[in-house]
């Protein structure tokens, strides 16, 4: 704990980073307020009101992440454990599971979810990287037979496994970045998490902004009607530039940071499309209602789910000796 405090450089960089985020949010809040003034404070306006709700929620999310950083690596692991719990609850709620799925679901929530985060806390790479895809995969299928029901067996079993893979396995790769021993980067791994989260979330925000300002051509009308080609290109390009500009908090050179950010942004965008396909199949627009203006926990995290494991393994492959 408090690793960041042991390294003055890491502490200064973390403070500078949060100062920058606070400044950006301040500018966003001001813009939101001016837009609201223009239409009239008492006049309801769906787009601007939603924008302001989103900005307010961002303040809260940054505050929660900042608080977890104060408690060091373990604080971040606990935070992502809770995030996985809320995400899995949203995912399973939207899946029509049946009474005979009870044992598989109880095992997922009460055994697999905590176990995955304990393994990350132990930094046991050999087990946490296969625990859900191998042991979870097999044991959950066995548990699905417990009810004795054979109807839609494969469909039922795969719903629970998908939930665990997306909401627990993929999300847990964010705190798993803490376990990577990178030469010359000791005690600064929290900044790797900050890099991933800032790049992927700013990509979402910038795609939204570019889309709202210049969006003309829909990029995937069936999957996600609000996404446009202009939003995608502008958002990914500017978030990649932001990633390159953040090279000083990473073990990467500027051009490497740009490529990493590009990989994160592309995975995030495609992940958003996949999660949107699942939502639409279930006939809903949002996963939940937890975060004002954004929808559910999974609506905010869909791009993180797909970007985190890829970023983790790219970093591990090239930077861990």
């Amino acid at each position, binding site marked *: 704990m408090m690793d960041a405090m042991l390294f003055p450089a890491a502490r200064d960089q973390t403070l500078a980073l949060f100062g920058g985020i606070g400044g950006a949010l301040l500018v966003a809040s001001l813009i939101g307020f001016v837009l609201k003034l223009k239409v009239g404070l008492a006049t309801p306006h769906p787009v601007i009101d939603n924008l302001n709700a989103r900005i307010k929620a961002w303040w809260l999310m940054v505050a929660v992440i900042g608080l977890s950083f104060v408690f060091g690596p373990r604080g971040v692991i606990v935070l992502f454990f809770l995030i996985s719990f809320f995400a899995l*609850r949203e995912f399973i709620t939207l899946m029509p599971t049946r*009474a005979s799925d009870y044992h598989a*679901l109880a095992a997922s929530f009460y055994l697999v979810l905590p176990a995955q985060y304990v393994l990350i806390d132990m930094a046991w790479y050999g087990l946490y990287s296969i625990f859900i895809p191998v042991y979870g995969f097999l044991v959950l299928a066995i548990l699905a037979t417990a009810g004795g029901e054979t109807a839609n067996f494969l469909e039922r079993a795969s719903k629970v496994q998908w939930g665990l893979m997306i909401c627990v396995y993929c999300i847990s790769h964010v705190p798993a970045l803490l376990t990577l021993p990178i030469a010359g980067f000791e005690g600064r791994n929290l900044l790797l998490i900050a890099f991933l989260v800032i790049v992927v979330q700013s990509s979402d925000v910038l795609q939204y902004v570019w889309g709202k300002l210049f969006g003309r051509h829909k990029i995937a009308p069936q999957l996600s009607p609000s996404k446009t080609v202009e939003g995608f290109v502008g958002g990914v390009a500017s978030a990649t530039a932001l990633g390159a500009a953040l090279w000083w908090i990473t073990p990467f050179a500027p051009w490497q940071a740009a490529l990493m950010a590009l990989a994160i942004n592309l995975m995030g965008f495609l992940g958003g499309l996949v999660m949107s396909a699942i939502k639409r199949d279930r006939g809903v627009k949002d996963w939940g209602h937890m975060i004002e203006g954004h929808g559910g926990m999974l609506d905010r995290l869909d791009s993180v789910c797909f970007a985190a494991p890829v970023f983790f393994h790219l970093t591990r492959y090239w930077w861990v000796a």
Partner: protein
Amino acid sequence: MVASLFAFVITGLARAITGARALWRGCAPERVRRVYFANHGSHIDFVLIWSSLPPALRRMTRPVAGSDYWDRSGVRRFIIHQVFRGVLVDREHKPDSPDPIDVMVDAIDAGASLIIFPEGTRNVEEGLLPFKSGIHRIAQARPDIEFVPVWLDNLKRVMPKGKLLPLPILCTVSFGAPIRLHEGESREDFLSRTRAALVALAEEHAA
């Protein structure tokens, strides 16, 4: 003191596991005496309704429960009497026990709102069972009381029958528009009107 601590823990748990999201579709949460009538799928139905009410309403709202189940052990007695201040009624019609309707009407006269489950028993299937006549007898005894339909969605998945460990699944509690007994309305008409209101609320939620 111990009872309010229990109430705090139980409502906190219900919220952590189910989200307990209240949707006031047909009325606002006001401090008036009401009879909330809901679909019944699990033992924790009234806990979720109770948890989703604002604290001021929670204090005046009492669940109606069967004494055959709740008076059986010390722990159950403590929970239903001290924590939820439940109105216990005898469902087995023993000769020496008071009429359940009198017990409920007395509680209403003392200033309480009630939570009742007019299907009479837990329903493990989809949909709604026919209503028992008690809801009509309460309405006849106190025709000025509002009856508010309450649809519990998803709660059956949280605690399937026979299971003890609840699953974390998000639930909603929808409150519909209040219903009053019309003058001269027959038992059949009132039962089918209240039941139809609950079915409509379920369909509105699914849409």
